[in-house]
């Protein structure tokens, strides 16, 4: 399964890649586009080659920490409307502690390390890059 997609994420497909008869606990995290401040959609851009490698590293780290777990991740890029998922992580493990921990580890590392940026598009047609504190900043000059 590819880590980056420009299509809606299918959680069922993601689950199928991690679940098995030995893994009794599965934790899924979905990040969806919120309707903050008149946001209609978010345009996600990535440094794709590095994103792919960084995700592979993060998943390998999760596997090293929780060897019996299996974790998969998809991040969607491009324009994503409010309410749809930008990221989905599924972590399956024999027991739930590892499933929750591995899932949480992966989302936290993704937020810190993966080179993806979001530009919020607003009802009034304006666009703003999102800074990591959660506050939109400057421009969106390029597309407008």
């Amino acid at each position, binding site marked *: 399964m590819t880590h980056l997609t420009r299509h809606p994420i299918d959680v069922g497909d993601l689950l199928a890649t991690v679940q098995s008869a030995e893994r009794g606990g599965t934790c899924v995290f979905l990040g969806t586009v919120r309707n903050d401040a008149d946001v209609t959609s978010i345009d996600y*851009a990535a440094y794709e080659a590095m994103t792919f*490698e960084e995700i592979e590293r993060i998943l390998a780290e999760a596997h090293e920490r929780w060897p019996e777990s299996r974790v998969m991740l998809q*991040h969607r890029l491009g324009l994503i409307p409010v309410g749809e998922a930008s990221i989905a992580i599924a972590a399956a493990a024999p027991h739930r502690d590892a499933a929750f921990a591995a899932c949480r580890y992966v989302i936290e590392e993704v*937020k810190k390390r*993966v080179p*993806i*940026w979001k530009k919020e598009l607003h009802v009034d047609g304006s666009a703003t890059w999102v800074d990591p504190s959660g506050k939109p900043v400057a*421009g969106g000059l*390029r597309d407008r």
Partner: protein
Amino acid sequence: MAKVSVRFFARYAELAGCDWSAVNVSTPATVGDVIARVREVFPGTQAMPPRPLAALNRRQVKHDALVNDGDEVALLPPLSGG
């Protein structure tokens, strides 16, 4: 001399006016030297913070990392993925 590819993303691409370029630096050179050169060639990038997040060959590095001919340096605005 080393010729280093430079990639700009998101807001920094707007500041630079391009997504991709290449600069020459005298060796030995660091990522910080590449960034200093970038600020000369693309004056818009002087609006970047003093120490922007940088990647060398697709890994985040500090500005004292050494660069070689053919390397790829990327300038990364604050990440907001997920």
